[in-house]
């Protein structure tokens, strides 16, 4: 039998962010709201 001596490469499938990371980003986006009042900018992060 022929042997494969090369190292196993990281598959394209594995080079993706974790589901939890994406969920965090989406939650962060939903929680963040920026309110502008005249020249002032207010950031609120509601959990």
């Amino acid at each position, binding site marked *: 039998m022929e042997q494969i001596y090369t190292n196993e490469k990281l598959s394209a499938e594995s080079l*993706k*962010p974790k589901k939890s990371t994406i969920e965090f*980003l989406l939650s*962060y986006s939903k929680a963040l709201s920026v309110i502008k009042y005249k020249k002032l900018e207010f950031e609120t992060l509601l959990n």
Partner: protein
Amino acid sequence: MEQTLQDSVLVADYIKGDEKALELLINRHSHRIYSFIFSKVYDKDITEDIFQDTFIKVINTLKRGNYNEEGKFLPWVMRIAHNLVIDHFRKNARMPKFEGSDDFNIFSILGDQALNIEKQIIKDQVETDVKNLIDGLPDDQREVLIMRMYKDMSFKEIAKHTDVSINTALGRMRYAIINLRKMVEKNQIVLTN
């Protein structure tokens, strides 16, 4: 071209408040951005962190309405990721750290050689006991023992120094050890820690 347009549409939708548009944007480009970061840092955990920070910047900029690169969403995100990768390496250059892996832990090699307080106290007590025992030996035996054990002299040198034959020096050393053992037994001293 179609995708570029769609990106700009999605960005516009997101700015208007459509959260679903962000999900589509992230899912569409996550692989490219993640791969790009991984190709620079070669560490999945760090890649995950930088990926997250990249999109936090993206979200902050879009929500504040500071985004003005319509139609160039991906290159813009890539540039943010690139800058964060540079920041990561700069930070590590200032504060290099070694991270052990599962197979190899640096702390198995590097250890604190100093004794802890308890062991230090025991060591001091043992040394004091030994010193007292040696003081209890007859002068000629004590002299030979100190020369041999503490001054690291050979029996030939000891013999010459004390003006006796080598056999006498050897005999005194032997009796010194026998007497020390007797004193240890008699006083029930423990000389180990």
